[in-house]
């Protein structure tokens, strides 16, 4: 039983990191329709910004905040300088997937050329282990869970209750009508990219804290799991992304504990592929489908 409980604990931590990232990934996708495979690189890059700050003595939680801002700015810059021009140039959705992969590769390997292939760690104590019944979590892990819960709640709340949040949801589902309502679409899209990048930054630092050692490609390697969570929850739905993150996080850790721990990601992907085979509606057309069904 305690194996199960402790695996569950790990699962919740993984789910927390996944939730932060998957919400960022899916939010940006639903608003802009760009399937951004450079998302993992933004995580890594911001994680390294936090690392450098951490090296000169900045507290890791403060560095996380800096990473968030940095990730947001990088994300906005990628969109303004690369993705937007390419879309206006007439590159289609599949071409854009290839372009986002290019951007990811350039970022990852640019970073690797600078920092080398070695492993890095934050200078941050994990904190005292705390026991709740059979759960054993460090303070750091608890903090990550708390941050994830707070962030997803804030994003969800902002989307649900603020004027801009509603504009963002409106823009995602019907851009032409949002324009007709006077929504400044360009600014709202930039905001979506910023929030997505900021969440990538926080998710990146949280991931690096959790797995304790990281390289210049760690974020991109994790991206596939993020996509699994986002797809599982239904791409384009932040609430779904949180649910998907929980399922993937818990299934991988619990399954890994009982089965081969190295194969835990395979479980996540298998779940995702089975879900897709049962519901093969198509990724990019999801919102359009909703429109058609509602008619």
């Amino acid at each position, binding site marked *: 039983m305690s194996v199960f409980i402790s695996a569950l604990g790990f699962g919740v931590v993984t789910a927390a990191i996944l939730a932060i990232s998957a919400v960022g990934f899916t939010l940006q996708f639903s608003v802009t329709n760009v399937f951004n495979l450079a998302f993992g690189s933004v995580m890594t890059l911001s994680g390294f910004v936090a690392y450098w700050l951490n090296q000169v003595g900045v507290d890791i939680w403060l560095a996380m905040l800096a990473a968030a801002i940095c990730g947001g700015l990088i994300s906005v810059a990628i969109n303004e300088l690369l993705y937007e021009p390419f879309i206006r140039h007439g590159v289609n959705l599949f071409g854009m997937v290839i372009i986002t992969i290019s951007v990811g590769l350039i970022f990852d390997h640019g970073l690797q050329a600078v920092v080398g292939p070695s492993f890095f760690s934050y200078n941050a104590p994990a904190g005292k282990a705390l026991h709740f019944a059979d759960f054993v979590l460090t303070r750091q892990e608890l903090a990550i869970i708390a941050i994830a819960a707070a962030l997803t709640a804030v994003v969800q709340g902002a989307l649900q209750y603020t*004027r801009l949040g*509603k504009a963002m*949801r*409106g823009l995602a*589902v019907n851009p*032409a*009508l949002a324009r007709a*309502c006077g929504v400044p679409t360009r600014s709202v899209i930039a905001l979506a990219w910023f929030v997505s990048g900021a969440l990538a930054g926080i998710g990146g630092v949280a991931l690096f804290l959790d797995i304790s050692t990281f390289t210049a490609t760690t974020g991109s390697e994790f991206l596939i799991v993020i996509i699994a969570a986002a797809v599982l929850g239904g791409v384009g739905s932040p609430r779904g992304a949180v649910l998907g993150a929980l399922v993937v996080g818990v299934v991988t850790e619990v399954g890994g504990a009982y089965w081969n721990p190295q194969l835990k990601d395979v479980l996540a992907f298998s779940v995702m592929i089975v879900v897709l085979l049962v519901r093969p509606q198509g990724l990019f057309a999801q919102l359009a489908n909703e429109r058609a069904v509602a008619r």
Partner: protein
Amino acid sequence: MLDGVSAGYGGHEIVHNVSIEITPGRIDCVVGPNGAGKSTLLRAITRDAELLAGRIWLQGTEISQTPGNRLVSRGLAWVPQLDDVFNTLTVRENLELGGFLLPRRRVAARIEEMLELFPLLSRLTARVAGRLSGGERKLLAIARALMPSPSALLLDEPTAGLSPEMTNLVLRDQIPRLSESGVAVLLVEQRAIEAIEISARVHVMVSGAVRTSREAQELRGDWDELTRLFLGEE
């Protein structure tokens, strides 16, 4: 308001030299057979089709070059034929987005006014728009467009795809009440008879050009002439 407008897509002209003037408190309707270019005309006003020639004025200001998301602040609102609501948002949220440019404190009050104008919507405020029936949807779309108190409202085939009962509800019961609130309505309709019954002025459009513009009273009852125009009998 429209002065010698020609419009189309990709340089291909579909609407030729149309001039129409609309007045506050009155409904003007554009009727015509399939493919006459009625929707293209509206889409030229809302920047969704190319304006190839002519100028568009609204209350003395030229809006021919105004970008799409600035038109609403000039007092122009429109309801597209398809994709007319935000499907995943609730009725209330749809209205709130409609009032995106209103001062924050005005929004709630304006929503109440809209719900009074369309009582049918008032018990549905928490419903997701994608789950409304066709008629309810259309009313919501119109209410959403009216949120910023526009001076002119364009309606693109509001009854397309609606059942006869719903058509009645939208066209006969609800739209006539709009003009009472002082807005100028330009209605494009496939269902000519019903549209003419509620309109003040009728513009018959065939093959991209306005064949005739008359007071609606003159045409009412004289369906034969209208049919001839529609069915291409000269």
